């Protein structure tokens, strides 16, 4: 073998090593662009990691197969026969295999969290899944929105819900209208949780920044409502003072002004109408706000009565039966009469009416 022949493979080997070396900066740059190496997630150490390996890199397809299996599982069994652990496991695997599959978090989270008969009533498991979705998809607004609804309706943690509505409203790419809607939801949730001050601030922001006249009007209505509620509370405090001082209720709020318990007269209600006495609950209420609340409560009760008929073939026999239906078979609560009065119920027509009519 000549020296020349012996050197040839050596040169080739040097070129080979040089090419591998040259490829390294490109690999490093690709890793940087792609956000380090992709398959590294916390899921690597749990059971689905073995599935990831089995998939040989075709993770998304395996996620789709699991998705269809999970759907078949929902479809083939009654809710009471479904195993929440197994369903959570399915969705956990799906979302480990395809962390960007937003609909898997949404459907899975909602189905797990919703109480029977629509879901499995595993609220915390549903929340866990949605939390995972939010971590993996920090720019998606649908996941915090969905989770906010769950917190709002089931554990009734309004502050948490408000925080999530706000988080959703701050995600990129939302239209101003949608942003304002979500801010509105956050404000409502704060109000529902008793944080009227924060709620008012959010409505103010919406009022000042919303491009839509309708949305601004809606925000203004809510601001007036919150201000009216604040006045109601203030006047109710004065009412307590009056009762303490005189040993009985006044005949009207104006009596409180005349007696000096309320300084500078009874203020005007920002929502319009006037302030009235609700003797049963010993409170001062706005006539307009009460009227609206009574209308809402009655519409809700009538809808539930109709739902009862759809399920059981007839209207509830009494208001008490309707109350039990709402409390035991739905996720809602039976609304107390806003003025503390009674509802009047007709079992023949299934209609509920207020025991008191406000002029």
């Amino acid at each position: 073998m000549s020296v020349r022949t012996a050197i040839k493979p050596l040169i080739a080997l040097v070129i080979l090593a040089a090419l591998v070396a040259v490829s390294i900066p490109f690999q490093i740059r690709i890793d940087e662009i792609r956000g380090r190496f992709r398959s590294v997630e916390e899921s690597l150490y749990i059971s689905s990691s073995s599935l990831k390996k089995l998939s040989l890199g075709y993770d998304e397809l395996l996620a789709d197969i699991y998705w269809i299996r999970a759907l078949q599982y929902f479809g083939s069994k009654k809710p009471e026969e479904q195993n929440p652990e197994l369903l959570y496991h399915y969705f956990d695997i799906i979302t480990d295999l395809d962390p960007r599959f937003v609909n898997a978090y949404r459907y899975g989270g909602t189905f797990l969290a919703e109480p029977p008969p629509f879901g499995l009533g595993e609220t915390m498991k549903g929340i866990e899944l949605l939390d995972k979705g939010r971590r993996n998809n920090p720019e998606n607004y649908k996941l915090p929105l969905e989770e906010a609804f769950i917190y709002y309706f089931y554990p009734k943690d309004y502050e948490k819900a408000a925080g999530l509505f706000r988080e959703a409203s701050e995600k990129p790419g939302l239209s101003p209208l949608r942003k304002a809607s979500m801010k509105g939801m956050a404000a409502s949730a704060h109000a529902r949780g008793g944080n009227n001050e924060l709620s008012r601030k959010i409505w103010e922001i919406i009022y000042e920044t919303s491009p839509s006249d309708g949305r601004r009007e809606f925000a203004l209505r809510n601001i007036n409502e919150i201000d009216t509620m604040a006045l109601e509370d203030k006047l109710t405090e004065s009412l307590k003072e009056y009762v303490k001082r005189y040993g009985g209720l006044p005949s009207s709020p104006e009596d409180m002004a005349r007696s000096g318990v309320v300084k500078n007269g009874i203020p005007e209600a920002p929502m319009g109408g006037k302030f009235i006495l609700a003797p049963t609950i010993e409170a001062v209420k706005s006539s307009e706000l009460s009227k609206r609340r009574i209308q809402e409560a009655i519409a809700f009760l009538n809808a539930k009565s109709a739902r009862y008929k759809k399920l059981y073939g007839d209207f509830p026999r009494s208001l008490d039966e309707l109350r039990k239906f709402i409390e035991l078979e739905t996720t809602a609560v039976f609304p107390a009469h806003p003025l503390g009065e009674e509802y009047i119920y007709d079992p023949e027509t299934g209609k509920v009416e207020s025991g008191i009519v406000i002029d």
Partner: protein
Amino acid sequence: MRRILSVAHNTFIEAIRDRVLYSLILFAIIMILSSLVFASISAEQYNKIVKDLGLTAISIIGILISVFLGIGLVYKEVERKTVYNIFSKPIKRYEFIFGKYLGLCITLFVITLGMALILFLLVLLIEIRYEGLISFYYGGHYYAEFFNAVYFEYLEFLVVIGIALVFSSFTTPVMSALFTFFVIAIGRFSSDIRLFAEEVKSPFTALFSEAVYRIIPNLEKFDVRSEAVYGGIVNPDLILYTTVYAVIYTLALLILATIIFERKEFK
């Protein structure tokens, strides 16, 4: 160069005669039937299922063709003794290797393009039909990302053909296939090796794992299928760097195959 092109042309014609284009018909049948079935039971995730399934099918069919045609590239010529015929002509061994490789790349290009167009038509049909739903769920159609995903898959085929060619130049087709699939499997989990390098305490093991990570083909880098569904990071920089990486790695493989082939003695 003319001689390389001549070998490439013959390899392409041979592959066509081997009826590899039938894979397109197989692909079309798989895609149409499965998308009809799966998409209908996917709870409105039509485009995701069709894109995932289609891009996976392109990848699997492409890799299978790359491996099974790649392992036979050299071995078949040696086995049939046609290699004597070839080398009796003024053709160098590296020209033979590069020509064979190029021929198979052209074959794969035709097949991948065919499959991509069939899939794209199907995706278009579904996306037109469920326009509103897809915009709502996924925020866009990501057609550019779709073709990027196919292009990245093609880059992966180029590397896989190179790997198969290296093994094919010194061992039997069965062993070549086994080795190639083994390397593909390792390449698909390259980030696990990197993770190991990060987690391990011993500096020597860490350095060794890092070196292995850099040397093995990082096939994970060719997977942007998820971006075809959700959109995302496929920017011109990534396309450029990944292309250069594939070209350099393939060149290294071809040189390795040539070194081995140069040392082979034909009796």
